[in-house]
Every structure is written in C-alpha cells, then in structure tokens.
C-alpha cells in the first residue's frame, strides 16, 4: 500500500513537472530578462523543497535527541541528503540563470552565498556520519550538527545581505512587478510537484536507511558466530 502511494506520488510529480515545461516554454519571454527568467520555475521550487527537507531534518534531529528513537535519525539523514541534492539543483540552476543575465556564472549575492554555505554545512553533516561507526554516537552527533547548522541560517542570510549591500550587487526579482497570475499558478504547481518528488525520494531513502540498519544487525550477528 505504502509503496503504491509513493509510486503514484512520484509519477504525479513527474507528470506535473513535465507538463509544466511545455506550459512554461509557451509563456511570453519576460520583459527584461527574456526566457532565462523562466529558470525560476525550477529554481524556486528546488529551493523550497531543499529548505523543507532541511527544516524536517532539524525537527527530526531535535526529536531524536529527545526520544532517542532511531526512526527520527533515519528521517533526519534521509531528508538532509535529499536537501543537499535539491540545494545542488538550486545552485546549478541559479548559476545557469546568472550567466545570461549578468554575464557571470556566479555572484556572491546573499541567497546564492547562503545556499552555498548551507550546502557546505550539510555536506559536513553527511561526511561526519560517514566517519562515525557507532550508531548511537553517529545519530547523536549528527543531530547536534544539524541543529547547529540550522540556527546559523538566519544569521548567515542577514549578514551576507549586509555584507554585499555595501557593494553594488545584482538583484533578483528586479522585475517582480511583472509576475502575472498564470505564472504564479504554474509556479504553485511546480513547487507542489517538487515537494512531492522530494517526499518520495526521502521515503525511498528512508527505506534504504532501514535496510542499512538491518544489514548492520546482520553483520553483528555474523560476527557473533
């Protein structure tokens, strides 16, 4: 049953995203940026999915520390990993957006930089998990890192914003005024689809984490013989 729901959710997300590509392609080019502006239809949903995943990781990390239930740790690692994947999507699409508009692949604007710092932080989280063998210690330490990483988000964002406003910096949404209604509808669908996709991947990753634990216990059993 659960498998079927996941399967349906994944297919639905895929269909929505694929359909929206054609809808988006038919939209008239945006006034100042042309078609490149439409990258936002993947960029923003990926970002939303990434931050939802990272937020879920924070909540489950806290829950793990409170309850010591390994199920929460599994959700935390699954959603962090998916969060990193979607952050990567956000970074790559952001970079491809910057190239035609500003003529540069990368700009140190507050959103991109905060995302990059977050990406590095959660990469550290995943590397830390690989470096620790003992399950309880791994889960506990990872949860602490996750909490530490997340409390840095607002302070990161605002400080990078203040840092760069002292220099002339290109600004996103300089033409927000021209965001028409039907665009917002498609954007809404894309965000929904991306979140569904993220949920499906997290669920699959969660099952893998359970298999991993099964594998670990089998290994211990094999050692005991």
């Amino acid at each position, binding site marked *: 049953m659960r498998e079927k729901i996941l399967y349906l959710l994944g297919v639905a997300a895929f269909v929505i995203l694929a359909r929206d590509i054609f809808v988006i392609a038919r939209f008239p080019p945006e006034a100042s940026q042309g078609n490149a502006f439409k990258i936002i239809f993947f960029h923003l949903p990926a970002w939303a999915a990434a931050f939802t995943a990272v937020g879920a990781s924070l909540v489950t990390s806290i829950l793990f*520390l409170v309850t010591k239930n390994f199920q929460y740790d599994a959700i935390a690692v699954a959603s962090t990993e998916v969060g990193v994947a979607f952050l990567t999507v956000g970074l790559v699409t952001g970079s491809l957006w910057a190239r035609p508009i500003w003529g540069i692949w990368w700009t140190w604007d507050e959103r991109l930089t905060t995302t990059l*710092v977050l990406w*590095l*932080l959660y*990469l*550290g989280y995943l*590397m*830390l998990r690989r*470096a*620790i063998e003992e399950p*309880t*210690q791994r889960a*506990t*330490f990872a949860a*602490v*890192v996750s*909490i*530490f*990483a997340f*409390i*840095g988000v607002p*302070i*990161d964002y*605002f*400080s*990078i914003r*203040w*840092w760069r406003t002292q220099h002339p910096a290109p600004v996103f949404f300089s033409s927000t005024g021209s965001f028409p209604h039907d665009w917002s509808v498609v954007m809404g669908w894309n965000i929904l689809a991306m979140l569904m996709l993220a949920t499906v991947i997290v669920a699959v990753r969660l099952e893998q984490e359970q298999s991993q634990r099964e594998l670990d216990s089998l290994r211990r059993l094999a050692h005991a013989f």
Partner: protein
Amino acid sequence: MATIATPEVTASPVRHAGSGASALRQVFVIVAKDLRAELRTKEAVNAALAFAIMILVLFSFAFDPAADETKMFAGGLLWIVFAFAGTLVLNRSFARELPNDCLDALIAAPISGAMLFLGKALASYVLVMAVELVALPVFGIFYYVRWYDHFWQMMLVLALGTWAITVVGTVFSALTVNIRLREVMLPMLTYPMLVPALMASMQLTADLVNGKQIWGPDFIWMKVLISFDILYTAASLALVEIVLVG
C-alpha cells in the same frame, strides 16, 4: 608526550554542580588544568604560532603587501590566519585528553558537561588569544598596517571574534575527538559555521586598520558578532552534555 592526569578534578571535594560559586570553581579547575598541561609542552601554541606566521609570509607572495588595496582586505587576511591557527589549538583541546583515557575520567568526574565545556573553551580561548596577540604585531609589521590606532576597539573585536571561533571550535573538537579523520572533520564543520562571525570580524578589523571607528555605520557588524557569540554559546551549553555523555 605524556599527558597529565586530572587529579584536581577527580579529587575535588565538590560533588555536584550546585551553587554558582562551586560551578565557577569547577570551570576554573578545568581552565587551570588545561593551561598547565599546555604550558608544559607548548606544542599546540608553538605549532599555531609558527603556522600563523608562515601563512602571513605566504600571503605576501599572493599580492603586494605595500599596495594601498592591501589595507582593504587586511582584515579578511588576518581573520583567515586566526581561524586557521585557532583550529590547530582547538584540535588539541579534547585530543589532548585521549591518551591514558583522561577524557573518560573527565566525563566521569563530578562536574557537569556544561562546566567542563566552559573550562575547556576558556582555556583554549586564552591560548588562541595569546597566539593572536603575537601574530597581530607581526602582521602589522609585514603588511605596513597601523592596527593600534584604536587599540581598545581592536582588542574588543579580537576578543569577541576569538570567542566565536573558540566556542564553535570547542564543541566540534569534543564532537570529532573520537572519530576517524578528526583533523579534516574539525575545519570542515567549523569554517562554514563560522561564516557570519568571521565576516563581522573581518569587516570591523578592516574598518579599524583603515582608521575608522567601529561605532560608525558598521556597528551592525558588532551586533552580528555579539549575537553570534550569545546564540552559539547558549546552544553549545545546552547541547554539550549530549555530545560528551551521549
């Protein structure tokens, strides 16, 4: 290099972290123990100092130290050096306790994790500060920077920035002490975490070496630095028990 055991702690008559005075004494005992251990060998401080000066020399090849623009990013350069050198000291903070299972003894000692953490952090703070106070004049000489114009403001920035490095570094030092790749994991985790604090310190230091006061339009960075310190000190004190005891 023999590491001293911790008789002061285990033999301490204080049995629990009850009143404020006894908690303070516990912190002091840990600080004194760590400083004494470090002063006997001086291995972390010497390494950090040599490392800091070496980076300062290497940076001089990356750009012209005599150029006027150098003053613009002098603050950034200085704090990169401090962050690198600080990590060397912090790496030793808990690793020093590994031989002879001193860490287990410390955790088993009748002292709360938060106090142990505070003691460790303060000891590292003193050591990192010492390294920085030696590196700062060297930096001034090498890069023709007048850092002493607003001496006490400079010290304030140094004190706050170093506390940010120390508090985050000590938590992750405790966290990475037992794992593989400790030397790699510590900077991997601390540097991204320190981004706002380092940015604030860099900005304020750049202002000071350019003759500006920190109370001007850039006072917002002082606020960033102070709130970073408060936020991460609180989070560390809340979570360090879990890290140490598990």
